[in-house]
């Protein structure tokens, strides 16, 4: 399960944000994205997750390989912790909710409605969702927001276990997760603005 990105052009609201993005991510590898706010990390991750089309270049990726984790956790306030996880497990056709609960120390909260969780607990539940997807490539956008030091370590161990199992992870974060990961600074790829994606602009040039 390899992710190959070649000369990718990403745009946001019709304006190019990143251009010439190239990297590969093999099994057992992690890649950390850095860059100031607004530099296009989220746009890049959403493009790789298939939520928005690439304006140019190539993404080579097996079908149904990516598990995407966004800023929002997609939790339902009136469902319990276990119900939230069981729902996503059913959607992805897996059934191992217990491992996910244990990995993020949510066992004791399993019956509690998600609306009664703290921000950090919600985040842990959102991250536990990744485990029930059974997908090999994790694409994560700022996963450690609102996590305390213990929870960050918990997350670091989970990613480590995922990598050891042959998975891979692409993570936008500013925190050191204690992983042996390469770092990619997206500001290197900031679009110069000369290249218009749709041919509409240069037609006037």
């Amino acid at each position, binding site marked *: 399960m390899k992710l190959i990105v070649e000369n990718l052009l990403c745009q946001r609201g019709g304006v190019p944000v990143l251009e010439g993005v190239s990297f590969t991510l093999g099994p057992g590898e992690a890649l950390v994205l850095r860059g100031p706010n607004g530099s296009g990390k989220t746009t890049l991750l959403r493009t790789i*997750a*298939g*939520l*928005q*089309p690439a304006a140019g270049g190539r993404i080579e990726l097996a079908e*149904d390989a*990516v*598990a*995407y984790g*966004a*800023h*929002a*956790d*997609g*939790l*339902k306030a*009136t*469902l319990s912790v276990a*119900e939230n996880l*069981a*729902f*996503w497990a*059913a*959607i*992805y*056709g897996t059934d191992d909710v217990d491992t996910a609960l244990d990995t993020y120390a949510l066992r004791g909260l399993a019956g509690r409605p998600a609306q009664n969780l703290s921000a950090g607990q919600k985040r842990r539940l959102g991250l536990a*969702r990744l485990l029930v997807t059974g997908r090999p490539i994790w694409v994560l956008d700022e996963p450690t927001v609102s996590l305390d030091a213990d929870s960050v370590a918990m997350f670091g161990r989970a990613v480590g276990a995922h990598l050891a199992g042959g998975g891979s992870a692409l993570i936008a974060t500013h925190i050191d997760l204690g992983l042996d990961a390469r770092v990619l600074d997206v500001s290197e790829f900031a679009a110069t603005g000369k290249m218009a994606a749709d041919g509409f602009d240069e037609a006037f040039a």
Partner: protein
Amino acid sequence: MIALLVRDLKLAMRAGGGFGLGLAFFLVVTVLVPFGVGPDSGILGAIAPGILWIGALLACLLSLDRIFQLDYEDGSLDLLATAPIPMESVVLVKALAHWLTSGLPLVLAAPVLGVLLNLPAGGYLWIVVSLLIGTPALSVIGTFGAAITVGLRRGGLLLSLLVLPLYVPVLIFGTEAARRGAEGLANTTPLLMLAGISAGVLALLPFAAAAAIRVNLR
């Protein structure tokens, strides 16, 4: 897909508003009509099928903007879009859940409200049959409208403006079927047309709605 349906039904039950609000709205509209047109039972009986259809249609409209909006806001829709079920199925399930929580209760309540409007005895069967065939189309068309407006601020008002003109054929054939049935006339043609529209929108609109959602998530 079943998991999604079960989840949506659970959410509707626990949030409360799901079943109750639409029904209460339907009741209030029906009760207001005699105040507007007068208590003459002849007039009320004649317009009852139309009033029940319009009431059901408006009650259906009320809950449309919640179909995708909540999932959009909490990020679930992004996650569903990257999940291994096609967006077309998500749309269909959402429409089905909307029909089960909004459309079906209206169908069941219509004959009760028919009593208030002095619906002729022959009309009860046909109001239920026409609503049963027609309300799925209302849900599917409404789901399409919700998919178009999901990312918009002030989407609710726009949603009504987009969806109501699309409801015209359903409303016409639905009321015709109910009215003709109530008057003891042959109503096979409008019923078949209504069934045709329901089948057609079920088969085709999920594709348009799924395309609209993908555009809105970009």
